[in-house]
């Protein structure tokens, strides 16, 4: 039994994949970054999003179970993430200062609701070379 459990753990770890990220910029346009975030009781994946100041960050949110909320603390961003198989919620957010912006589930979703938090880390964009 113990061997079975260990083997299943190894299989789980072996089948991991990384959430997709995409960053693009048209000429003379602000950077645009798109991130897919999955919500489930009681975590966001990824729970850490790195971006640069001035980048237009588009976050596409889906749920693997019930309806959740997505709120960036201190901003106007607060949206409901529809239940599993009910579609995607999309928000955009453009950090104007370097810093850490906390996001959290804003819709009560169960006993561990308050564990559903994450952070957007915005750093200064590297200056373009002349």
């Amino acid at each position, binding site marked *: 039994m*113990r061997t*079975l*459990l260990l083997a*299943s*753990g190894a299989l*789980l770890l072996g*089948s991991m*994949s*990384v959430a997709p990220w995409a960053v693009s910029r048209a000429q003379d346009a602000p950077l645009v970054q798109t991130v897919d975030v*999955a919500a489930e*009781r*009681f*975590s966001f*994946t*990824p*729970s*850490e999003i790195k971006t640069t100041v001035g980048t237009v960050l*588009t976050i596409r949110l889906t749920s*693997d*179970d*019930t309806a959740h*909320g997505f*709120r*960036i603390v*201190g*901003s*106007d*961003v*607060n*949206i*409901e993430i*529809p*239940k*599993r*198989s*009910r*579609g*995607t*919620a*999309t*928000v*955009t*957010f*453009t*950090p*104007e*200062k370097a*810093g*850490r912006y*906390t996001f959290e589930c*804003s*819709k*009560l979703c*169960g*006993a*561990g*609701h*308050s*564990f559903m938090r*994450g952070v957007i880390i915005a750093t200064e964009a590297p200056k373009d070379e002349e």
Partner: protein
Amino acid sequence: MFDGDVLSTQNFTFGNRGLLPLALGLLLSFPADSSAQNTPGPTSPTALSGYMEVHYTNAELEDGQLDFHRFILLITHQFSDRIRFVSELELEHALVAGLEEAGELELEQAYIDFLLSRSFNVRAGMLLMPVGIINERHEPPVFYGVERPLVETVIIPTTWFEPGVGIHGELGRGWRYRAYVTSPLNAARFSAEEGVRDGRQKGSRTNVGKAAATGRVEYVGIRGLTTGASFWAGSTGFEFRPRFDVPVRVVEADARYARARFEGRAQVAQVTIAGAGDLNDAIARTTGVNPNIARTLRGSYLEASYRVVSGARFGDVGTFVRYENVDTQFRMPAGYLPLQEFDRDAWVVGATYWPEPDIAVKFDYVHQRNRSAIVPAPHSFNIGLGWWF
């Protein structure tokens, strides 16, 4: 400080419609969510939610039983961005008439969270022990099977809650932790069949002469994967006179992985009761009955499930199989023999129908066995209805 802007442009989508022309689907014509725009999140600082479970159990050699097992209300209040209150009030078995068998009204959670930073937050009040898969994540639509796994009933005594104080946070890259100091278990109520389960003090005038410590480290950095390890340690012999020490340790590891329609779960848990021989002697002196408590209890399970229907207009359907092995008499103190009927294993097979993601209609069959040549292990057929709102 910064600008935030919500766009509301994306339509909801559906997949794999009409895979199964089930008669049930025709009868239950649930409307699809036809919203064309994203919905703003809630803005009220106070929220009410809850979940309920009704069970029909038909065990071998017994009449069927219908039980409104759990009625739970959650109330939360956000005092500010950094201070919030969370509570969970549970009515078990629909009636409060004294002992647990009749029904219980329990305050399972009631705490204040002081959110100081991402990596360090303080929590105080009535806390769920951060041990195992189910204890902190037990809403009926999120687990297969009418009843919770046996491992998470008699090895990890879910729902396990005690008053205390602690810290929690996320360390980055998907690693997070909880560490609490709480009231301990009460060894005077341990048993051969259900281990430490009846030793929960549940926050009612609890003895904290020697506080217990518990914690969990968890990795949630990959979509669909949650894996963690938990511990609990405490001194539990406070009720005896003269008082003597009964140190108890609980260690546990688990993994849960969901990808597309597949989900797998694995868990192993062990309880160690130091001084179990003295504990048996002390209880026997008090009650006149030898409780035959083991010095080690062990349990594990593997579960695989698959959503055979996903995203259909009439809902989702999933099937599962689980193998459990539980032995609450795994290692005995010197001079005590194990009661073989408590060395159990079980195959559980069943299905869940979600007419919508927050409602689960469950069916399962439990084929239980034990090592006793005298006491049979009853098989059972179970039906459950659970919902979250």
